[in-house]
């Protein structure tokens, strides 16, 4: 399956990109997605090992199971207001 991954703010600047797509085995979790991204090596290993993540615009934890076509966002610490 394939998921779309979005990056924002400091992450976007570190990686030099606002999004990527990742192929994953069926049943892969958020945690496994993060590992897969970091395993690409520099600069992807700058992604924190346990970032906050949103799946389809809702916060999800590392054990959340992904589905084909999910929109996954890496959420740096937020600073609204």
């Amino acid at each position: 399956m394939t998921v779309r991954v979005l990056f924002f703010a400091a992450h976007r600047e570190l990686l030099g990109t606002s999004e990527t797509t990742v192929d994953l085995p069926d049943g892969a979790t958020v945690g496994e997605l993060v590992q897969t991204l970091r395993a690409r090596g520099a600069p992807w290993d700058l992604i924190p090992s346990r970032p906050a993540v949103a799946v389809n615009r809702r916060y999800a934890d590392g054990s959340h199971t992904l589905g084909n076509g999910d929109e996954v966002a890496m959420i740096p610490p937020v600073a609204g207001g």
Partner: protein
Amino acid sequence: MVWSDVTTEPIEPGAVLGRVGGASYGAVVLFLGTVRNTNDGRPVSGMEYHGYEAMAQEQLAVIVGEASEIAGGAPVAAVHRLGTLALGEISVAIAVSTPHRASAFEASRHVIEEIKKRLPVWKKEHYVDGRTDWVKGIQPAPETAP
């Protein structure tokens, strides 16, 4: 009546205030967040607000819904600005009207505290010396399954 928006347009406090109130309500609280000229002692010249806009819209609607529930179903309106703001400009406006004052303060406070904890928005400070820096934020918690 609840209303929320995430926008790049300047915020008009009077328009947000106008979305709440009425003869059933005895108290109105309007909160405004504005861009300060210093942060942690460093002179600031402006602020860039970035957001995951689609999610921020959804999250702000949820937060405003929670606040209305706290206030017994009373009207709550909130808007968060994105883009580059000058000193003194309004980054967030929250209006609540309730029958009695305690729940108006409580609901208003809920909205701003939850915005700071979970709205996917980031800000980059521009300092008078020309440097910029991302403002240190708060790691949002995963949502508990409903």
